[in-house]
Structure formats: structure tokens, C-alpha cells
């Protein structure tokens, strides 16, 4: 009898467990929605930093789940370097229009003119670092107190150390030694006037989680994420799109290749990967098989030094 009861109990337990169990994507999704709603509940003037890249597209999808049938409690904000992929820009505009949400675009070009900044020189002159100026100006202009971003901790070792609510001083600087303890799922968004918080709802997602989520949720992406033919320049093993923004020399090795983008940043500092993956399943298979990290394969800007990201963050970068 006792044995029988035990079996019944354990049967019930197994049933209960299966029925009320969330898989990893459900758990990550719920965590991200919770973080976004904390932003809505704690801040007066938040913003969602939106680039048209896959991670920020996932953020928009999560915001829909967090706030519909209401409007987003924040505008979408894009810091446009002027070196973006046209496909990503078109996608950005169409998505904002389709959702009926406010889109704010501020351009690095304008900041360069207004503040008389010096454009970086060189073959792949990148405005990546100059984005920080425009971002800080935009934060000032709209008095944003929180900026939601799509950075993930698996991307880079400095990011692995950053809090989900990352407090920045009035210069946007991250001070890794003065980070607030962040306990349980309790987020302290209290700040002084002039400070702001960068909030990273998908901190705990990996590249593969993002792609699996995109597949599961059938999220649309800009076409550059899928294999297409493109004129590229081969430089130190990386494939850089031929554009007006880079210096081409007669000795350069230029060819048309079938490529896709694993990340989408500036045309000058984002490299393509050779691929024939034309749908999400193929992309996921390629990512599972790859032996190179996302940023390592595609970002020219991280290769400067071992602490390149840490230094940029200390200077106000995303």
C-alpha cells in the first residue's frame, strides 16, 4: 500500500514537473521581459537602442511581448554612423512604421560637423568610437535616464562582468570597480541627475540562444543575415564589403563571394563570412559547427587590444 502510494506520488510529481517546466528559451524570454518592465516601472524617460541588427530586433520582439496591447513606454533610438548597411536601415524604418512606434535617429555625421570632430583615418576608418559622442548628445537631448541595449555577456570578456543594470556617469563611463552588487532578480535603478543606466535584458543569452529564439518565434531579419552574393575585399583573412567607406587600393584582392553577416555593425568594421546558408536552419547548423566566436570572426574593432571593449565601455560606449 505504502509503495503504491509512493508510486502515485512520484507519478504525480513527474506529471507536475513536465507540465510546469519551462525550457531555456522560455526562461530567458521571461527574464528579459521582466527586466524591460523593470525599466518601464523605474524610469521616467527610457529608450531602446535599436540598430537594425538581430539582437536589437529580438529586443523589439520582447518589448511587444512585455507591453502589448499598450504602446512601448520608450522610443526606438538609432545612432546612425552613416556607414550602416542600407538593408539594415530600410529594415529599421519599415519595422518602426509597421509597429507604429516612435523612432529617433541621430547621426554621427551631424555630431562630427557640429563638434568639429576628427574623422579616423586609414583603410577601414571606423566611426565606431565616434558613436559614443552622438549617443551621449542624444541622451542629453532627450534626457534619457535608461537606455536598453542588446549586448550579451557571451560576446566579450569585459561584457561578461557588466551588470544587467549598468550605471554610467554623466560622461557615460562604465567603472568596473564601482559596480553595484546586483542580487536575486532585484534591479536598483536609482541614479543621480545626469547619470543614466544601460540595461541589458538579453545579458544571459548566447549567440545560439538568439538564433534559436529567432527561429522559434519566426522573427524577420534584414536580408544581409542570409547568404547573398557580394563584392568583398579580403584582408588578413576577413571579408570586408566593398563600399565607398573604405579605401580601395590597386593591390587589393577583390572578388564576388557568397557571404552572410553574423553580426551587423558598420560596413567598415564588420566582416562577412563565406556561407551558403539561406535560411535560419542552415545558419544555426553553421553556428553549431563554427570554431570561431561571433565577435572574433566578424569584428575588426575588437582586435586592437586584449582590453579593447573594456576601454571603449569606460569611455561611454554601449
Amino acid at each position, binding site marked *: 500500500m505504502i509503495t503504491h502510494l509512493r508510486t502515485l506520488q512520484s507519478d504525480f*510529481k513527474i506529471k*507536475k*514537473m513536465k507540465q*510546469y*517546466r*519551462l*525550457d*531555456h528559451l*522560455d*526562461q530567458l524570454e*521571461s527574464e528579459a*521581459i*521582466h527586466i524591460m*518592465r*523593470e525599466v*518601464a*516601472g523605474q524610469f521616467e524617460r527610457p529608450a531602446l537602442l535599436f540598430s537594425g541588427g538581430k539582437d536589437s530586433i529580438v529586443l523589439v520582439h520582447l518589448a*511587444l*511581448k*512585455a*507591453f502589448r*496591447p*499598450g*504602446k512601448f*513606454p520608450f522610443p526606438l533610438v538609432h545612432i546612425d554612423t552613416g556607414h550602416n548597411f542600407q538593408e539594415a536601415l530600410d529594415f529599421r524604418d519599415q519595422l518602426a512604421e509597421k509597429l507604429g512606434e516612435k523612432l529617433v535617429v541621430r547621426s554621427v555625421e551631424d555630431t562630427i560637423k557640429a563638434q568639429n570632430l576628427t574623422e579616423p583615418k586609414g583603410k577601414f576608418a571606423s566611426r565606431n568610437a565616434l558613436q559614443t559622442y552622438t549617443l551621449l548628445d542624444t541622451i542629453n537631448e532627450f534626457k534619457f535616464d535608461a537606455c536598453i541595449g542588446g549586448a550579451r*555577456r*557571451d560576446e566579450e*570578456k*569585459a561584457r*561578461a*562582468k557588466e551588470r544587467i543594470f549598468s*550605471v554610467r556617469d554623466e560622461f557615460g563611463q562604465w567603472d*568596473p*570597480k564601482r*559596480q*553595484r*552588487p*546586483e*542580487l*536575486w*532578480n*532585484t534591479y*536598483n535603478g*536609482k*541614479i*543621480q541627475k545626469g547619470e543614466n543606466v544601460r540595461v541589458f535584458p538579453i*545579458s*544571459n543569452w*548566447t549567440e*545560439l*540562444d538568439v538564433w534559436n529564439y529567432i527561429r522559434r518565434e519566426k522573427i524577420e531579419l534584414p536580408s544581409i543575415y542570409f547568404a547573398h552574393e557580394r563584392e568583398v575585399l579580403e584582408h588578413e583573412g576577413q571579408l570586408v564589403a566593398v563600399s565607398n567607406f573604405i579605401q580601395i587600393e590597386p593591390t587589393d584582392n577583390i572578388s564576388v563571394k557568397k557571404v552572410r553577416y553574423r553580426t551587423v555593425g558598420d560596413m567598415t568594421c564588420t566582416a562577412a563570412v563565406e556561407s551558403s546558408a539561406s535560411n535560419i536552419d542552415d545558419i544555426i547548423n553553421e553556428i553549431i559547427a*563554427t*570554431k*570561431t*566566436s561571433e565577435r*572574433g*570572426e566578424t569584428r575588426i574593432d575588437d582586435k586592437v587590444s*586584449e*582590453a579593447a571593449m*573594456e576601454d571603449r565601455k569606460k569611455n561611454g560606449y554601449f
Partner: protein
Amino acid sequence: MDILRFITAGSVDDGKSTLIGRLLYDSKSIMIDQLEAIEKQSKNREEGEIDLALLTDGLRAEREQGITIDVAYKYFSTPKRKFIIADAPGHIQYTRNMVTGASNADLIIILIDARHGVVEQTRRHSIIASLLKIPHVVVAINKMDMVNYSQDVFNNIVIDYSTVAKSLGLPQVTYIPMSALNGDNIVDKSDKLSWFDGETLLNFLENVEVQNDVNLTNARFPVQYVIRPQTEELHDYRGYAGKIISGIYRKGDTVTILPAGLQSKIASIELGGKEVKEAFAPQSVILQLEDDIDISRGDIIVPGNHLPKVEQELDVLLCWMDSKPLTEGSRYLVQLNSKTVKGIVKEIEYKLDVNSLEKQFAPEKVSLNDVVKAKIRTASPLPFDSYGDLRVNGGAILIDETSNVTVGACMIQ
């Protein structure tokens, strides 16, 4: 596939970073470019072999000093599970960082150097695990290669540690002998440890059941944000957005709204824009109620009769996290999930020695990293559960209103 969040406690000397590096390396979660980068650094440091520890130290200061200062999060997955590692520093001066990392952990790996056995640091880490109520404990007896893979050494450490675990009431302790440096018993079983019939570390991490740690009985739903579209077709819509932190919610349930104590019924539950009949922890949902009552951020919606306490006097175990000392009579903000109230630390009963569990009554000074038993009085009633009963509704932070910094972690008794 689900998620296991675990924390590793130990110092570089115990091989903690090597262990994490080994888990990442042997589960093939390290990419070639990352390996090349650490190879380059290893050479910079004039060390012969690849230093797996370099994988985990993310800040320049950490790499320069060869120590871990702050919690770093690392990720890897196997076909069975996604793993989130909180890699926390082990030294006493970073106790607050360890408490931070431990707060979200389902499991803790406590590293013991087989040559040294249970030492002061082992006790401290175990005490923190018991304070934070981490559900599962793995005692990783490392550097078995340095003691000739001796079963006696292992057995003696198990006997020693059992006493510690018993005195702290630690549940579910699992012992695994290993050598992180050589990869024995981390991912693959080792011939040298053939006398050990338990699972390898990774095997254990893949299979340990954490679903039972989610409380499905005492339901709690802290309101984070009220959704009011105020459009023509949704004129009267009031949705309470939040995460179910424990329990199950069903359409039609009678609910109590705390701290006010009002009652209503659940009219609808929306999950990701779709209406559902029931939802459970840890899902983020929107609840609509049948009655139009005043509910705002910080209120808790509770079905059934297992209500949380609603009180203004809190007995807490408090880990102090600020460089300014804690003094009796100081005022702070108390934040518990989405609710923030003013509070005053009325009485500091005793200070707990985190190395020995000794109580020092009426301590003169409470400094950074100290753990004390204290009484807090809040300006208004706070709905809470005891941390021991319901971890998700019993942990609160203290915020200094002048600096805005998080200065304390409270486990409500």
C-alpha cells in the same frame, strides 16, 4: 533543455579558474580565436602551457594581478542543458561579490584542494551557501593528482566536510574527486579514479534535478507595471504586468491584493499577447482582474490562502556591502522585488563570523562584508515571505538614498 545556474567558490590556488576553463574547453565552448588570444597572453606571461584561468578573468586589473575581483558570467551548453556560471572571487575581501553571485544560483561548487582538505575558506563558502539557501552543493575535491589519486585522502575530506554540512544544515551534498588540470572526472571518467563510482562533474551538472526548487504551491505575483492602452477599443483595459515568481495562476482564481488586502478574481491571463487559462513560475504575464480596484507597482497579487506576511518589522540576516560602515538608526530604501519602501535599521543584534559562525553580540562596528542579524522597521507594511520558506520573496536589498548604491542584502527571517 533547461537552465542550470551555478556558482563556483574557491580561489585561483584551488584551481577554480582552471576548473571553469576545463569545463568550457572540454565541452568545446571555447572558440579558436579565444584560445589563440589566451595562448598569446600565456606567452606574454612567460608561461609554457595554456593558462585556462585566463579565460575567466575579464578585466585588465584581474589579468594583471592574476586574481578574480568581480563576478563574471560564463556560458556553455550541452545537448541536455544550458549552463550559466557565476564565477565569483573566493577571498574574504570579496565576500559581497560572492553573495551577489550566490543569490541566483541553483547550485554551488565548493572547491577543496585535496592536499589541504577543509580549510577556513571552505567553511566561509559553505556558510554563504547556507545563508543564501543554495539548493544544491557539490564539493569538488580537486588536485587529486597531487595526492596520488588516493581514495583515503578523498574519504577523509568527505568525513570532515560532512560535519560542516551537518552543522549548517546544507541539503543535497555531492562529493566528486577530480583534477581540473588533467581533466580527470570533469567531463570524462578517469582511470586513475576508478575506485570512484559516482558521476563526473559534468554528468552530475547535466542531471541534477532543479525543477523541484521552483515553488509551485505558494503563488506570488509582484506587479511591475500597469498597462493602460487608453485607445478607443481598449478603453477600460487595465493589465497588471509582472513575473509569476512562484506558484500557478488560473483564470477565475480568487486573489488577494497586498498590502491593501482587497479581493478580486482573475478575469484573464495573457502570455506573450495570447490569452491562456493558467500560467506558472517563472513566466512573465499580464493579469486582468474582474474588479476595478487601485493596484500599482509594488503590490502583490496572491491566489488562495497561503498569504505572505504583511508587516513593518523585519528580522533579517544582512550582508553589508558598502565601504561606509553600517550604524544603528540609519535610514535606507528597502527594495523587495518591485516594491520599494523606506526603512530604518533599528537594532543590530549580533555579528556573524563567516569563518566560524560565532556570534558577536552588540558589535561596535559593522564594515564591508560583515554579516549581521538586525531588525529593520519599514515606513509602510511590506508583504514578504521568510527567505527560508520562499527564497524568491524573502530577499531584499538596501539602497543608500544619498549615494543610490546597493549597500546591503537582506535575507528576511
